[in-house]
């Protein structure tokens, strides 16, 4: 598996995805080598190790290395995380950067990876379907993104207090935008009136990361998984105020697995595995007034809190368990190898794929 730099699962959802995949592959009996592109020569390692499958995480890495790996016998998997071009496009609609073509630049990179890999993986099955619509049937698969530790899953709908919690790293633009938007447009007034308590922001934040003042906000630095879960679990309501983004948001799965009642934007809930019984995973709010109403309701309405938490726990149980993860991963490996063999067959028949440098 090739990644751009050292992974830090406690700091970023992308790293967590990679770390869980490492655990999952080893759990399936695979011998796995993690190659940090910046520290070791990925191509040389791929030559000497002779893996059956090469997974490349991060479009910048895959777009650079995939051309050189086209003749390698291994199946090539591009781990897409999310459709970054959609995330950039949505963010640019809000922020209006100097050039509106930024999303197309990112898409250029991503499409290159889709076309050069045997298989692209996306946590959101709808995003995998999109890639298939561009590249062709079978070119992408949805993946179970996270291995949730069932020991941590619990119903915390009766947690007292008035505090809110948000989890997500400040380097991910939708997180920074979401926290600042919620603080400025919803939380501050409710905090000043005493209707809500503090907004706890988890994910390696420092004061320098957040613009504006910190009234009512507590930024949390590095925490272990256990410390993080304990601290989050002491909050009354979880929030996912993402106004743009793409793919499945790990924070949402994390909240659901902790049994925390959730208010979320519709963007934040995209791609999340549903409750098989059809229960509501969250109160959905996309504007300040809806957020205000939803937060106050989840503060007080015990029945609604319990309804949501139970639905969330069922969703986690059905979509993010180890059994689901391993079943999906075995399917992914088989599909990638099959597509690699077919590519070899096409090559043997003389129809070499044309690769633009």
């Amino acid at each position, binding site marked *: 598996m090739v990644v*751009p*730099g*050292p992974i830090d699962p406690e700091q*970023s959802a992308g790293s967590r995805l990679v770390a869980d995949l490492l655990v999952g592959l080893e759990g399936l009996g695979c011998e796995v080598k993690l190659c*940090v*592109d*910046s*520290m070791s020569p990925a191509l040389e390692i791929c030559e000497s190790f002779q893996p059956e499958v090469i997974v490349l995480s*991060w*479009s*910048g*890495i895959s*777009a*650079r*290395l995939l*051309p*050189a790996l086209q003749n390698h016998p291994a199946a090539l998997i591009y781990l897409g995380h999310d459709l*970054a071009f959609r995330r*950039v496009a949505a963010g640019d609609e809000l922020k209006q*950067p*100097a*050039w509106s*073509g*930024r999303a*197309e*630049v*990112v898409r*250029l*990179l991503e499409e*290159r990876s889709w076309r050069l890999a045997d298989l692209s993986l996306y946590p959101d099955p709808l995003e995998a379907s999109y890639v298939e619509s561009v590249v062709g049937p079978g070119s992408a698969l949805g993946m179970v993104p996270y291995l949730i530790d069932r020991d941590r899953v619990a119903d915390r709908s009766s947690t007292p207090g008035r505090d809110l919690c948000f989890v997500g790293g400040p*380097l991910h633009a939708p997180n920074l935008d979401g926290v600042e938007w919620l603080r400025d447009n919803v939380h501050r007034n409710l905090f000043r009136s005493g209707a809500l308590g503090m907004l706890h922001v988890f994910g390696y934040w420092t004061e320098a990361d957040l613009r504006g003042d910190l009234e009512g906000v507590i930024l949390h630095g590095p925490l272990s998984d256990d410390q993080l879960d304990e601290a989050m679990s002491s909050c009354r309501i979880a929030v996912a105020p993402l106004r743009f983004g793409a793919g499945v948001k790990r924070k949402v799965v994390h909240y659901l697995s902790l049994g925390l009642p959730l208010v979320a934007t519709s963007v934040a809930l995209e791609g999340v595995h549903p409750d098989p019984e059809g229960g509501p995973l969250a109160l959905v709010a996309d504007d300040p007034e809806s957020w205000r109403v939803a937060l106050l309701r989840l503060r007080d309405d015990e029945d609604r809190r319990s309804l949501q938490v139970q639905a969330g726990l069922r969703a986690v149980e059905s979509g993010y368990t180890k059994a689901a993860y391993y079943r999906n991963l075995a399917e992914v490996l088989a599909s990638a190898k099959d597509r690699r063999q077919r590519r070899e067959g096409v090559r043997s028949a003389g129809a070499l794929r044309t690769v*633009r*440098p």
Partner: protein
Amino acid sequence: MPERYELSAPEVIADLIDGEAVAIDLTTGHYHRLRGASAEVWEALIRGATEEEILASAAGPIDPKSLSDFVVSLCEESLLRERSSIDPVAVPAWEPGMLELESFVDLEDILGIDPIHEVDPDRGWPHAPDA
């Protein structure tokens, strides 16, 4: 300066998007836009055309120095490298205009920051050092 150039692949990838050329340096995460005449000259250069061939195909007057400066700017950004072949390249007629490379650095996190060479020494990867 070399006579003929090619794209610095695979570190750099390029394409045309809605008539504008885009080049992405995957080692820095910097990306570049070339519009109008700049895009046409860029396309000719990465196909291996010499400055003389490009000047000869201009549909109007052009200052050769502006073309040379433009090529220098592309090389300074490591977007082009010397091409070994010397086959002549047919360059379609093009309308001269301002030759300009527009460079952007605001997508480093997505486009491929090099974690070792572009890392903040105190905060570690993936924090880029302050400019």
